[in-house]
């Protein structure tokens, strides 16, 4: 220990060795907190605006995922809509109308899905940090899930595309499913680290 460091220690008076040990131990044991995922999107947007980043735009990168999601939506709607909502056809004018109670039910489902999604986001934030070392396959799966969720978020927040309630519900349902997978995976990972 140098003279200066010794002086420092003398100045750091008031604590016994045991008290300082406990303080250091407890400080170092304090866990890190994961930031909300939206922060990276903000950073990326600012960095692109300042010309700090090269390569494909974030949203362009996930264009294929978004395209696949739209295709899946169309396919699911084509398959599910007649079974779920059975649109009523007016024989007089040939126009197709959707019964009001079905729309109300969809709204309820949509709200429930949004709440479920929020709960899953919160649960994910409560989990310990990702370990710094992990299997490549696990890291890839987590990355893929995050990318797919990001692509869905992009679709849901894209103001240039007007989604109807049913399309929105399909996206939210898929989001909840992906979030469930992500939380389960991260939970399993946390369990492995703790043992």
């Amino acid at each position, binding site marked *: 220990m140098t003279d*200066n*460091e010794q002086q*420092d220690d003398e*100045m*750091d*008076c*008031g*604590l*016994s060795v*045991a*008290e300082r040990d*406990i*303080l*250091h131990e*407890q*400080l*170092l044991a*304090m866990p*890190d*907190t*994961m*930031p*909300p995922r939206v*922060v*990276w999107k*903000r*950073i*990326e947007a*600012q*960095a692109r605006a*300042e010309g*700090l*980043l*090269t*390569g*494909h735009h*974030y949203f362009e990168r996930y264009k294929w995922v978004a395209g696949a999601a739209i295709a899946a939506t169309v396919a699911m709607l084509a398959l599910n809509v007649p079974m779920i909502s059975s649109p009523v056809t007016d024989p007089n004018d040939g126009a197709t109308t959707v019964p009001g109670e079905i729309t109300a039910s969809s709204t309820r489902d949509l709200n429930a899905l949004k709440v479920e999604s929020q709960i899953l986001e919160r649960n994910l934030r409560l989990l310990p*940090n990702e370990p*710094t070392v992990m299997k490549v396959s696990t890291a890839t799966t987590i990355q893929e899930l995050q990318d797919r969720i990001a692509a869905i978020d992009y679709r849901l927040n894209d103001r240039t595309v007007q989604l109807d309630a049913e399309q929105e519900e399909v996206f939210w349902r898929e989001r909840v499913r992906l979030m469930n997978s992500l939380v389960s995976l991260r939970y399993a990972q946390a369990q492995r680290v703790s043992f």
Partner: protein
Amino acid sequence: MSKFADIRIDPSIVKRAVRGEAKAHEIIYRAFSAPVYSVGLRFTRVPAHAEDLLQETFIEVMRSIGKFRGDAPLGAWIRRIAVSKALMFLRSAWHARGQSLDDDWDDMTPGNVGNHGVSGRPDEALDLDAALANLPEVARAVVWLHDVEGFTHKEIAGLMGKSESFSKSQLSRAYQRLRPMLASHVSAANAGMDEQLVRQF
């Protein structure tokens, strides 16, 4: 040095980041976002401010990574940027309130000091987080920089634009305030050990 030291980034990723590759920067962000965000939270205690500091830190990383020579680990370099941003924030907050760093302790009246994290029951867990929350912001920052990040008083003084004695004095006063909580914890630990010894003999 806290969690920053445990994180290793492949030099090839850093080279790609220097070229401005978005994916490389995202990898660096994912590796360091939690420790950087945590520094912001420890200093400001407000998640929105910590998010702003996280953003400012990584924008600075992107702007300056070309100057990173690789002599020290990337984590140490990012940590210094994060700490510097957090301290700049604290300074600006003081300026906004028309106060200086020196009269920070005056805000901590007995009423808002609370219980220093000392539990009413001796068997209750140590609540260091609550005790730290009851310290003035600058003192909390000094404790964190000195005891967790391993900065010397000289370095802290340089970062804060203050003298070394200012840093030492802040740490000393912070320790005095934390002492009742730590002492009760030590007593509880000693009592536990005594009990174990009695049981053994």
